[in-house]
């Protein structure tokens, strides 16, 4: 087989792409992963809190570089610019793991390469090759044509490859969130332990909408901890950002005046400022919006590119990796049968639709919270029902 030809090309060496590459290579397939960054993971931003459910499908992930296990949730409710009420829930096992995307994804990419996948970095897939209605490969920004019978698009929420292939549409601005993420570092792990009260993820809710103008979907200021550093941020729907002309610098300046923040996080030093949208509602009413396709002749779309973000928690890394494994396995079966048609690759959709992915991307509970906007007590109860109560039952 010529070097320009592969069994499977994966576009995007992020969480999903690297998992797909590893699984494919382990099955003996000639696999290429194409990544636009020079180092996998260096263009990725996330919360994060990786749910441990992913270990059931991919147990080898337990060797990955995790920063901190998260075993509790601290929920603060703000009123008139201060913390009014706090609810703490602890669990006997981790509910999530704090990670940094760059080292984690770099580790994932190493695993894919060790398994035998070829990784081509600093390369943009600018278009797909289509022949007689089948996707047959990609064109790179160097003008190369790289061919394959099966393409897996793992290029994130923009899904440019899926759009070029004619099976995805641009996500609507009211279905995608963005927000500035700040990374802070504390002098020591113990300082962060003290600020958080343990291995806790921390949420600051604003039920009355005093800090952030209420929109269709209520959000929280989140503290996502790593070992001695953490991500802080709040997302808002992009259409709402435009409509309300929200200034994030003002918003965060007001938040950092909260006494609780000054007291507990006064030692935190700003280390990074960045942003990355997430398709948190890309899946709601997906079929009505006509953006439910995740496969076609010679192509499957995984992860954020397919809109696989859990609508309640906002987690998308685990669904990306689980869908990656499914797509890789279906690709291998398709190649064994010599049939990369949509009729065969439909098995990928059947698999994810009968998995936890389908349940998580159709969880409307976050909209239930917003339904109570204006009624603080009801909203607080709803928030605890959506986020804290499921964790409380875990601890029983």
């Amino acid at each position: 087989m010529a070097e320009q030809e592969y069994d499977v090309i994966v576009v995007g060496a992020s969480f999903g792409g690297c998992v797909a590459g590893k699984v494919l290579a382990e099955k003996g397939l000639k696999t290429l992963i194409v990544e636009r960054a020079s180092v996998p993971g260096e263009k990725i931003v996330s919360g994060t809190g990786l749910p441990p459910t992913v270990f059931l499908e991919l147990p080898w992930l337990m060797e990955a570089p995790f920063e901190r296990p998260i075993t509790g949730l601290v929920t603060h409710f703000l009123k008139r610019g201060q913390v009014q009420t706090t609810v703490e829930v602890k669990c006997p096992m981790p509910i999530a793991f704090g990670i940094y995307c760059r080292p984690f994804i770099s580790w994932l990419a190493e695993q894919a390469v060790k398994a035998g996948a070829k990784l081509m970095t600093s390369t943009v897939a600018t278009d797909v090759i289509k022949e007689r209605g089948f996707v047959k490969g990609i064109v790179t920004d160097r003008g190369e044509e790289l061919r394959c019978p099966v393409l897996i698009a793992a290029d994130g929420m923009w899904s440019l490859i899926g759009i070029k292939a004619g099976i995805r549409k641009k996500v609507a601005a009211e279905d995608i969130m963005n927000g500035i993420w700040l990374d802070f570092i504390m002098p020591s792990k113990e300082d962060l332990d003290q600020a958080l009260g343990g291995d806790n993820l921390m949420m600051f809710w604003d039920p009355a909408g005093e800090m952030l103008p209420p929109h269709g979907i209520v959000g929280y200021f989140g503290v996502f901890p790593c070992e001695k550093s953490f991500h802080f941020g709040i997302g808002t729907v992009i259409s709402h950002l435009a409509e309300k002309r929200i200034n994030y610098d003002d918003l965060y300046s007001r938040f950092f005046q909260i006494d609780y923040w000054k007291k507990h996080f006064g030692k935190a030093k700003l280390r990074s400022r960045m942003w990355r949208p997430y398709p948190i509602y890309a899946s709601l009413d997906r079929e009505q919006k006509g953006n439910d396709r995740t496969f076609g002749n010679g192509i499957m779309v995984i992860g954020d590119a397919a809109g696989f973000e859990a609508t309640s928690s906002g987690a998308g890394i685990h669904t990306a990796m689980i869908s990656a494994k499914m797509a890789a396995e279906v690709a291998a079966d398709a190649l064994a049968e010599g049939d990369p048609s949509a009729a065969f690759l439909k098995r990928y959709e059947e698999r994810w639709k009968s998995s936890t992915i389908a349940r998580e991307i159709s969880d409307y509970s976050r909209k239930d919270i917003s339904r109570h906007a204006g009624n603080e007590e009801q909203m607080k109860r709803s928030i605890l029902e959506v986020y804290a109560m499921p964790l409380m039952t875990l601890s029983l």
Partner: protein
Amino acid sequence: MVKKPKLPGTEWVPDTGDFIKISPDLCSGCGDCVVVCFGDCIKIRGGKAIVVAYETCCECGACWFICSENAIEFSWPKGGTGIKIEYG
């Protein structure tokens, strides 16, 4: 050559090419793309939106998502260029 841009915790590699293109014919000058761009990369000049800087572009595509006139063509910077984020 890697430059230190205005976003702490990041680096920026130049020669990205013009990866965000705004059509003056389609642009209505509404300014939504200016508002949603956290990097202040877009300004309104002569009633039309133009990209004025890439050094603070996080390649988020918010401008592309918000444009109701489909005036913005969003693609990726040349491979290996643009923002590099250490603590994402």
